[in-house]
């Protein structure tokens, strides 16, 4: 029960009526559930899909190339080399989702550790780390990312690392701000007095208290990472063929835009659906985990 519609004056006074728990709030969030269902379906298709199709993603059928969607054995048509687009789409989904999630894990880890250390130690270390974070934030992400991508050997791992290296800053800021506000709380003082080590306090006492915002930011990072992978691969700096990704499928599709538009439309829709799912989930999580969510 929430008093969302109560007049503003009531909101604060009647908050105690709100008996919400994060899980219930999330479940009630229709979009979040839609997102969860959608992304599960996509993931399932990507895992199981390739086995259910008659063609492998690398099988070349030059004669059948540019078959439009729905032709004979090709569900979504074929590409410029006569490879089954559906098979490639699903395999590409694996790659893109994996890259997105791995980049999220890596950047979350990086951001959390930097934020934690910066927030906990404050003073010199904190200042240095946060200034560094600020400096990296000055670069528009795509610019920084392209510089890295242009000079490094492109493969899935490298792209993951590059994306992580350019998207940890937000989480670092969130975590360091949270930690700074938590640092002086009683339970931390108590832990310190009882002789707990810095590491213990940081990871066992402080980090769990910031997990809500981290989860929200991490979910949105997956969405962004998928978009970025797509863009970088589209430009040809990303994941390299024959390994398909949604982004590099678009790279190849660009030149056939007027003759075989499905090559561009199919992966684009897949990206949009996947990213939308993660954004919906992130929105739901924010509502569920963030007390101020009403206002977001």
């Amino acid at each position, binding site marked *: 029960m929430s008093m*969302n*519609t109560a*007049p*503003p*004056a009531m*909101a604060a006074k009647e908050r105690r009526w709100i008996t919400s728990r994060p899980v219930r709030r999330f479940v009630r969030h229709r*979009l979040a559930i839609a997102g969860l269902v959608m992304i599960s379906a996509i993931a399932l298709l990507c895992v199981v899909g390739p086995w259910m199709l008659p063609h492998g993603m690398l099988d070349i059928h030059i004669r059948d190339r540019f078959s439009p969607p729905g032709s004979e054995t090709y569900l979504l048509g074929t590409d410029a080399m006569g490879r089954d687009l559906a098979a490639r789409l699903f395999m590409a989904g694996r790659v893109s989702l994996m890259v997105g999630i791995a980049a999220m894990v890596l950047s979350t880890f990086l951001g959390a550790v930097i934020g934690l250390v910066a927030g906990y130690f404050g003073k010199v270390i904190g200042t240095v780390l946060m*200034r*560094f974070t*600020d*400096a*990296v*934030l*000055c*670069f*528009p*992400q*795509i*610019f*920084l990312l*392209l*510089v*890295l991508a*242009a*000079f*490094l050997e492109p493969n899935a791992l490298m792209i993951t690392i590059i994306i992580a290296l350019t998207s940890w800053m937000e989480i670092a800021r969130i975590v360091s701000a949270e930690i700074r506000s938590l640092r002086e709380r009683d339970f931390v003082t108590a832990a310190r007095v009882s002789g707990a080590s810095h590491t213990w306090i940081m990871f066992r006492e402080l980090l769990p208290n910031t997990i809500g915002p981290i989860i929200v930011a991490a979910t949105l990072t997956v*969405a962004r990472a998928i*978009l970025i992978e*797509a*863009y970088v691969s*589209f*430009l040809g700096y990303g994941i390299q063929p024959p390994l398909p990704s949604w982004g590099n499928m*678009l790279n190849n599709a*660009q030149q056939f*835009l*007027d003759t075989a*538009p499905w090559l*561009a*439309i199919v992966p*684009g829709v897949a*990206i*949009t659906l996947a*990213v*939308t799912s*993660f*954004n*919906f989930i992130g*929105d739901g999580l924010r509502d569920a985990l963030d007390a101020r969510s*009403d*206002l*977001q």
Partner: protein
Amino acid sequence: MLRFLTYRLAHSLLLLFLVSVIGFMILHLAPGGPLSQFALSPGMSQAELEKIAERMGLNRPLPVQYLDWAARFVTADWGESFRDGRAVLDIIFGHLFATLLLILTSTILSVGLGTLVGVLGAMRRYSAYDYLATVGAMVALSIPTFWFGLVAIYVFSLRLGWLPSGNMYTIGDESFLDYAEHLIMPSVVLALVQVAIWSRYMRSSILDVVGQDFVRTARAKGLTRRRVLYVHILRNALIPMITLTGIQLPTLLSGALVTETVFTWPGIGRLFLDSLGYNDYPVVMGVLMFTAMFVLLGNLIADLLVAGVDPRVRLE
């Protein structure tokens, strides 16, 4: 005020220094080099390439190269392009107009539309409209900009033939209409994400303000709804949006880069990508520094603006 400015400038300078070090390291520590583009020219050899590298000063120790670069940078000499030998700053300024035109147009679009969508959403909270706007914004945030641009080109240029598929103007016809025609697709595509962001934040900012006591006071005074909205709610709700605009600058520039590449818009983003392709390090470095300065300056201006419109904020 003065103290604030001094502090912020010092802070910005420190950040710029870090930015330059990070940029320089990435550019110069990475394998490959600026000369690889000449490798396949007839009659080229590694020995020739090394001679060119030496003449260009590319084989000196990195710190020396950095200091040399930095010493010139502070005197507004950002080096010369490896390609055409023009001053980097001139090249950047040469592309600035296109980028500014694009981002300003799309910002006006997105601020206008985003505010409208956000205000309506906040005013009719939980209505079908609000729900639709929320979902719409989330989907808009999820569509890959470059792909959206491609689809737009496919539909409006290739299929319908209504709009030009790229460039900023037709050579020989540089009329206002011609510019406008070229501007429509890129600015709309760039605005898509910005509208989504703006409307979301606007909605939440409005709800934030609507919930404040002074709005109730205003209504209790018997003001018209319109006056409450414009004089009391919007005025306050827009203040955080100024800060947001500053914070969103990097996103906007990233978006501009993507849009410029899809629509071959001759702006900074396009310049950056081209220079990257040709390993034109001085220009790449210059654009990196320029965007960072743009972002820092944008945020500073945003802070000053907030201080200007919000009497509670004192610059210290």
